[in-house]
């Protein structure tokens, strides 16, 4: 439990990001196009720099305005989600490099790890990257200062609006 200040985090933007990561990477695997994986890595990298979900722009500019996806705003810490995206970017970046260097086994394994973790987040509501973030915070690692929202299992989607 913690009295930290939480922020409004729209989980629909996060979900859109995850769904695009899943779809584009599966497409990249089927079509054997590492360039598509590299593109996803690039978008995630840009998102990490701008502190926003990489493909969240599609949600904000198309899906939400047209009512195709509704906002799901929760009191949450955005930092663990950013950390998650950075980890995903690192995996896809490494995967892309491996694929371009001809190491298909290693490259696609890294890509499928990202697909699996994004799927767990999108369909199961559990963010493994966030759980790792909270785990590192528990050990007092510098840069990992946030604790999971009160009453929430680290990594699980927050169930409560805990601030007024």
């Amino acid at each position: 439990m913690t009295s930290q200040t939480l922020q409004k985090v729209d989980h629909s933007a996060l979900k859109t990001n995850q769904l695009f990561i899943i779809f584009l990477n599966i497409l990249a695997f089927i079509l054997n196009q590492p360039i598509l994986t590299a593109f996803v890595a690039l978008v995630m990298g840009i998102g990490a720099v701008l502190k926003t979900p990489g493909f969240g722009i599609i949600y904000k500019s198309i899906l939400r305005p047209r009512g195709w996806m509704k906002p799901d705003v929760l009191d949450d810490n955005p930092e663990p989600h950013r950390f998650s995206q950075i980890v995903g970017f690192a995996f896809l970046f490494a995967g892309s490099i491996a694929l371009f260097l001809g190491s298909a086994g290693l490259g696609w394994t890294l890509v499928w790890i990202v697909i699996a973790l994004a799927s767990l987040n999108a369909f199961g509501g559990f963010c493994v990257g966030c759980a790792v973030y909270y785990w590192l915070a528990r050990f007092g690692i510098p840069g990992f200062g946030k604790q999971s929202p009160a009453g929430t299992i680290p990594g699980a989607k927050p169930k409560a609006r805990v601030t007024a």
Partner: protein
Amino acid sequence: MSLELLLRFASAVGIIFLGVGVYWLANQFLLSRAKGNLSSLLNPLPNKPVIVYFTTPDCAPCKTVQRPALEKLTSLLGEKLHVVEIDATERPDLAKTWGVMSVPTTFLLNARGEARYVNNGVARVEKLMEQIQTL
């Protein structure tokens, strides 16, 4: 479509099925855990199918889809069904005990109190009805 493309497509489908299988196993684990939890919620057991519905005040799909689905189901089945709604923000202990990680989550239990289905995410009225008929 080239053979390589077909093979890659088949591999992708295989991996996805493997993932779904793992997810199914995790759900089976949740159901086995839920088996003993109903008696702590309802004592005595109502002797009819029970839906345990986890929600939160801020859950948008709960308000727009899940609750209307459950209301429709209740109006269709009347006394033949018992619905227990749990606000996970008020009862985080129950959410933890039942292994709920996101909302809405619905557990369907038969008249003997055995958990048979768990729906992580929205479950529409047709799906719930289908599950109730096989309890």
